[in-house]
């Protein structure tokens, strides 16, 4: 029996190994870089999705409150929107129940106590880029703050009179001779923008225009 050995191919093996190591390193590096890029992309897409979901949730919440509001005010500088709501639900009851309205001789309708109607304030809080949008309700049953955004981001919040879309000055609405509707616009700065252009914020703009059902 004659055994074939491969000793004579040892030199080639070293070269092969080195080449293989180089190729393997390149492939591994590419995979690592690819994975990192993929993860970055995935995180970016996920963050972007969450931020857009947050926009939608905030706008839905604002729309729900604005429709039923009796009046409100806007401070774009302060990034706040304040609404006065009818005190419809009596939270002192167990379980809380809707109130019956009282009507004055002049036709004014009030739920609960006229001097103690709830207010809701929407505001952007925190430092860039870790901001959240909160809703704070002050009512006879106390003060409650909830965070409406799952994500933290660099949010900008703009409310304006649809008849004056370029106006950014504070204004009130819902009262006599005041605007009967408002537009609320929310943007955020995408975190994983490859080049941090300001234009990338413009692409995130979401807005909703609400008519106050209880406008005087």
């Amino acid at each position, binding site marked *: *029996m*004659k*055994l*074939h050995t*491969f000793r004579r191919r040892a030199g080639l093996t070293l070269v092969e190994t080195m080449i293989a190591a180089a190729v393997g390193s390149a492939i591994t590096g590419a995979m690592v870089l690819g994975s990192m890029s*993929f993860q970055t992309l*995935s995180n970016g897409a*996920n963050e972007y*999705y*969450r931020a857009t*979901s*947050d926009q*939608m*949730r905030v706008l*839905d*919440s604002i729309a*729900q409150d604005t*429709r*039923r509001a009796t009046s409100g005010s806007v401070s774009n500088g302060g990034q706040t929107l304040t609404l006065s709501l*009818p005190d*419809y*639900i009596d939270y002192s009851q167990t*379980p*809380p*129940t*809707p109130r*019956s*309205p*009282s*009507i*004055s*001789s*002049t*036709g004014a*309708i009030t*739920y609960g106590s006229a001097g103690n109607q709830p207010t809701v304030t929407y505001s952007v809080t925190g430092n860039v880029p870790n901001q959240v949008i909160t809703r704070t309700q002050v009512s006879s049953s106390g003060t409650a703050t*909830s*965070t*409406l*955004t*799952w994500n933290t981001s660099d949010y900008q919040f703009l409310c304006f009179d649809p008849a004056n879309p370029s106006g950014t000055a504070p204004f009130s609405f819902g009262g*006599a*001779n005041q605007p009967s509707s408002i537009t609320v616009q929310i943007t955020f700065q995408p975190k994983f923008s490859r080049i941090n252009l300001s234009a990338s914020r413009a692409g995130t703009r979401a807005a909703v225009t609400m008519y106050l*059902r*209880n406008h005087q």
Partner: protein
Amino acid sequence: MKTQLAIPIAKGNGGSSLIIALLTLSTLSLVGATVLMNLNSRYNYTQKAVGWEAALSAAEAGADYGFANCRWTIGTGGTSPWNNWKKFDSTTSTWITVTNSSDANNQLVAGNKIIYDLPSGSHLVSGGQGTADLWYHVEVDSPGSLIVSGNRWYRIRATGYAALTGQARANNDSPDGARTHNDMLRKFDLRIDHFIKRYGDYAHAAGTSVPVTPQATRRIEVIAQPTTPFGKAFVVMGTTGNPLEAPLVDSYDSTDTLNYPGGLYNSGSRNPHTGTGTNATVYVNAPISSYSGTLYGNLETNGGSATKTNNISGTVTNTASINVPPVTAPSWKVTASSPAPSVITAGTTSSPSYGSYTSINDLTVVLPVGQTQGVANIYVTGNVQGGITVSPGVTLKIWFEGDFSMKARDIQNLNYNSSNLQFYGIDPPAGQSRSFDIGSGNPGFRYFSLDAPAYDFSVNGNPDFCGSFIVKNLSGNGNTTWHYDEALATVGLVTAYQRAMWVEDER
């Protein structure tokens, strides 16, 4: 014997490749599965959020239907209200269809609610994202607290439903970690109807878990307010020239006995800083360019060019346009054959009196025996003149087709409240005119309200008129003053319904 043994190195390399390939595929599959799972979660969330928004549209559609029925109760549109609505039958403890409009109305008068469910064949089909099926349930009632100045207001509660597609779960809707249904913005009924669980409904007690297929449910409440004619101090319907001469117009509130003891007008309580006594709105249908009188309130013109000057305490709006319904003869009228007697006894508030006459020449209306309040309704085909005396406790409404003429002092409303004496000047045939003339003679304060959009109102002397006035043109001398009673905003004939309040039950 020479034997050769080949070691299959290449074969071993092939095995490694297979393992690496499998590992790579597994990794890619895992990544793909994670991405798909995330996408599914996100898509499910977005779909349900859109469905939740659509449920509000269904609720608003239900409220609109309830509102339309409220308007149909006026009877001018020819459509019978409450068709196929249901009432609660206490003998069988079930909800049964009302027999007719009167049956439904009797339920409302008794303080009960009536309900309507959109038939399954009439569901609001949505072709968009989020839901493909929308429907509503409406409840209407009008408890005693919603009777204001004798007019019925309605409370409409409408629940909108949107069928949700996909899994019975909702993702990513609790950003601050809320785990209870109450704390979430969008409340989905994935397994049970949460409104029934909280409040019960027409068929279930509170706390009942009624299983449902996934749906979004939103509930709104709308208060329907009757539209009455006396919401402004003046409505002047003449379309040309300067149809209003009114030296001073202000307001008071006869229900505000703190500022107006006894419900009587006084000028001392008027305060532009607090708004007391400065809520007299004047509407001029003509495109006037200026307003010369003193007005404690707002001026509205239809296409005018008036500007706010020192004699107007409120605002000036030149783009106003209001619809003033024509005044027509009452539905209860009968053929008149004789003038009204000098004394008429009013009916009770629950059973008012009605009379049709050819004319009035001095009339006194007194309370029914044993009553402290009474209501009389009079229809006149001809002229009204002489004088009118309304006894305390009596509310008198007069519809007239002819001219009205008497001295201010002869309008004796002994209630000193303009809601107790209401005049309705019926629109004459096209091409004809009518007049409402008030002569001079120690007039003092006169309390009445007037809805006569086709009448020319002229006044002499210096009376103080307290009430609300709808006329075609108004002319008077320089010392006539007009005081709008803010409490008249809810008084008078119902001509339409309007939304007075809209709230959503966010629970």
